């Protein structure tokens, strides 16, 4: 192993820091060898895996400032606070001397950067602990050498190393140079803290890394990049998937003051992938001029094969498919026979429309090309994908593209797709490499999203004399995300089905899950918690319906249905190892019991008020929600309170766990109450927030109480960003049923309760 001491100024990611001649611990470090089994799952299975190398993530300046790299994209889930916190804790850094540095897109260097799937903390908890600990041990070794003391007599504490017997101390800054000269901490010799020694992890002690910047407007989101000589662009894109420009006239656009150039972007043949949709771009000296220029374009479109996409008609297509036996994806026992022999048969169908991500920051990216080298700034959830695809589309080497990750003004899955970055790259190329910022307007964002899918979920149960199901059929019909990547894909992928359809956690002897085909007529993408939304809505609503038919309390019924605690290994489990993440229905029971208890479940309620409960496992966490709803005489809904219980194994930043669950709750209620993108003549009908309405403060729950089950660091961590969302929609509708006797099966609720 070569020890390389690197001068900071050659390290791009530490440029320009208050970095007083400090030295980076730049050490060659072999990858840990993993058991074969570990290679197939979790963080090991993600492209570029994880990196076991403190030098990549930690740098200590002679001034004592500790720079910690965050290699995942910050979109509000708190990675720029939580991930550095992990390193800082094991390192024994003084958090007030920590500076967070955002990594550019470079997965070979940093490990996987695809910020998606609620993976950041749970995949990088141990790797980042190891980085912090390894660096700490080198500092301790340097101090011990300086003092000629046994290593056992020294320990790092809050930015210093202390010699126990004498109380002598040296700051990290004073030790940085010597530490870099120490032998590398051998991977086997890394000493992680006992969790009882955590000072930051698992506490609410730390304020958000970017709170000060956000509160003073001193932030750089994708929208905010500014470069000398930068131009601004908006693109007129096809409003129908597969649409093309047949003819355009830019003469009026070119006359708009500030417009510099009009550029055609060619669409790509085949499935959408992450490619730009194509269209006509207006490049101008400021955003307003570009927008005015676009208004002046005259474009004739060939809308293409999806020009008749109509949501009302398509719903009928889905329903017809849902009412016909389809391809079987799970078959235990004999559903047909058991249902035929059951005391009673209950059927329900649920419809959920397309949703748009509608993050507050629409997509935006800036590209500059100088002497064949391409620099990109943007709000990317996957900067590696942006880098690869921009290189490919421009026809330049991957090494010649640098992707800087800005803050993301929300992502929710939309910004995993770097189509907007490729657009900026093409436009910069079209103006000889001048910097071009492509700005998506809200209309662009709502019309050309990678929409959450539309679905019909058909459920049938044969129940016994006690009202418990002996036979269970779930037929799920929805255009698949796979259609975005493979032309003509019409079946939900294994992982879509594994999000609450196949892995229904009830030990019913006769279970049949079917997935009839559905064609996609728009771009479908992953939206926070993905197919867990329709599947949890249907399953948890249906369970409440069965409870009502049985005349039983819904919470008692749900727990009885889950049955005694057991390990329910039901196929795809977020690509995690069944050994590491057994699905334990006991944990689902406990969050349901906890949420119910905290909500005061069972106490009598005034007329028009009700509680609804739902519990769901997703992204390897267990979440239950109880929603309290009040519905007045005019059918107006208010939500005084929500209780959410989560078992995520253990937490790093519990304050962010609460924030994410509060936020998921708002997003879930928003979707249930009014979220819908509808299509007519192939195009999305909602233009802006007056038509795609999202929850505002007056409708938000007055109080959302999050109950985090106790930390157990012997457990692997569960995801946080997404699991809070799926139980909210059915819990809300179950509460509405409890309050009014009205069962909602079609979302959004809209005016369904109005008199």
């Amino acid at each position, binding site marked *: 192993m070569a020890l390389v001491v690197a001068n900071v100024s050659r390290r791009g990611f530490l440029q320009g820091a208050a970095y007083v001649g400090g030295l980076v611990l730049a050490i060659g470090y072999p990858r840990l060898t993993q058991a074969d089994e570990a290679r197939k799952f979790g963080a090991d299975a993600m492209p570029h895996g994880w990196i076991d190398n403190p030098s990549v993530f930690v740098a200590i300046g002679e001034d004592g400032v500790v720079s910690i790299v965050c290699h995942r994209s910050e979109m509000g889930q708190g990675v720029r606070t939580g991930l550095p916190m992990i390193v800082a804790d094991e390192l024994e850094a003084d958090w007030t001397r920590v500076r967070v540095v955002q990594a550019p897109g470079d997965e070979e260097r940093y490990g996987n950067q695809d910020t998606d799937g609620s993976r950041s903390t749970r995949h990088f908890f141990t790797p980042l602990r190891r980085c912090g600990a390894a660096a700490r041990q080198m500092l301790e070794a340097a101090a011990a050498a300086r003092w000629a003391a046994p290593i056992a007599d020294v320990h790092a504490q809050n930015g210093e190393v202390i010699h126990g017997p004498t109380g002598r101390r040296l700051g990290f800054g004073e030790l940085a140079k010597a530490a870099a000269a120490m032998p590398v901490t051998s991977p086997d010799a890394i000493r992680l803290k006992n969790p009882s020694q955590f000072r930051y992890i698992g506490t609410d002690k730390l304020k958000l890394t970017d709170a000060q910047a956000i509160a*003073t407007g001193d932030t750089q989101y994708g929208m905010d990049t500014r470069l000398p000589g930068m131009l601004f662009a908006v693109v007129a894109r096809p409003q129908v998937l597969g649409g093309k420009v047949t003819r355009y006239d830019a003469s009026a656009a070119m006359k708009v003051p500030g417009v510099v150039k009009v550029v055609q972007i060619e669409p790509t043949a085949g499935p959408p992938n992450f490619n730009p949709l194509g269209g006509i771009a207006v490049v101008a000296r400021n955003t307003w001029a570009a927008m005015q220029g676009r208004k002046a374009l005259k474009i004739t479109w060939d809308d293409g094969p999806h020009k008749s996409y109509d949501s009302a008609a398509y719903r009928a297509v889905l329903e017809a498919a849902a009412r016909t036996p389809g391809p079987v994806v799970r078959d235990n026992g004999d559903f047909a026979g058991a249902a035929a022999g059951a005391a009673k048969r209950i059927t329900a169908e649920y419809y959920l429309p397309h949703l748009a991500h509608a993050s507050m920051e629409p997509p935006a990216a800036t590209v500059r090309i100088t002497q064949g080298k391409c620099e990109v700034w943007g709000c990317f959830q996957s900067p590696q994908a942006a880098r690869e695809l921009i290189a490919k589309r421009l026809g330049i080497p991957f090494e010649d593209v640098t992707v800087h990750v800005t803050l993301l003004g929300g992502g929710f899955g939309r910004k995993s797709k770097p189509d907007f970055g490729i657009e900026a790259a093409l436009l910069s190329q079209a103006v000889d490499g001048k910097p071009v910022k492509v700005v998506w307007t809200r209309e662009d964002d709502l019309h050309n999203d990678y929409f959450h899918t539309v679905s019909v979920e058909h459920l049938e149960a044969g129940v016994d004399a006690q009202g418990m199901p002996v036979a269970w059929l779930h037929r799920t019909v929805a255009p698949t995300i796979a259609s975005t990547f493979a032309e003509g894909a019409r079946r939900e992928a294994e992982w879509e089905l594994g999000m609450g359809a196949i892995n229904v956690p009830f030990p019913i002897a006769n279970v049949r899950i079917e997935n009839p085909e559905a064609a996609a007529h728009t771009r479908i993408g992953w939206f926070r918690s993905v197919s867990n939304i329709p599947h949890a809505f249907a399953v948890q609503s249906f369970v409440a319906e069965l409870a009502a038919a049985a005349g039983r309390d819904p919470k008692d019924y749900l727990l009885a249905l889950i049955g005694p605690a057991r390990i329910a290994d039901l196929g795809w489990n977020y690509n995690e190892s069944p050994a590491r993440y057994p699905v334990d229905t006991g944990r689902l029971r406990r969050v349901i019991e906890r949420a119910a208890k905290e909500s005061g479940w069972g106490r009598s309620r005034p007329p028009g008020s009700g509680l609804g409960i739902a519990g769901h496992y997703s992204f390897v966490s267990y979440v239950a929600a109880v929603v309290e709803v009040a519905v007045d005489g005019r059918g107006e809904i208010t939500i005084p309170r929500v209780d959410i219980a989560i078992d995520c194994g253990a937490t790093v930043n519990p304050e962010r766990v609460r924030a994410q669950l509060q936020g998921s709750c708002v997003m879930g209620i928003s979707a249930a109450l009014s979220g819908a993108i509808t299509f007519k003549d192939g195009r999305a009908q909602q233009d802006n927030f007056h038509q795609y309405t999202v929850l505002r403060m007056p409708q938000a729950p007055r109080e959302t109480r999050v109950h985090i089950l106790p930390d157990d660091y012997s457990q692997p961590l569960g995801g946080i960003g997404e699991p809070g969302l799926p139980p909210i929609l059915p819990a809300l509708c179950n509460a509405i049923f409890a309050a009014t006797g009205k069962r909602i099966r079609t979302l959004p609720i809209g005016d369904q309760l109005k008199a």
Partner: protein
Amino acid sequence: MTKLDINGRPFEIELAADTPLLWVLRDEIGLTGTKFGCGMALCGACTVHIDGQAVRSCMTPISAAVGKKIVTIEAVGSDAVGRAVQAAWIDLSVPQCGYCQSGQIMSATALLRSKPKPTDADIDAAMAGNICRCGTYERIRAAIRQAADAHAVSP
């Protein structure tokens, strides 16, 4: 040519008088703290103060701001109310993605200047125009109350 007073400094803007203030702030002057979210005064991300009133800059032509005092998020902390709001935002870890929070802070500060002890209904009404897609509403309410209390104690 339009003369504007922004954060206490004079600017001479050569763009058309119907250019929305938002784009002058962001693209011409480089004050990017005021954000673009919808362009139709529906989301509140672009909120600034014009003569102390919360105004949506995406639909305010610069001609309408002439002769008035424009204050953006970058300067809202220059008085005690603004500072109290910012401090509460940080203390309660209000932001998630943070993109809407400039507008939220501007709306909250304008509210507290006109109503130092707002009721829940006052807060809902003043803040209903500011969308937060990350769902931080509960903390925004708490931060407004905390700022109101803090400012009442030490105005």
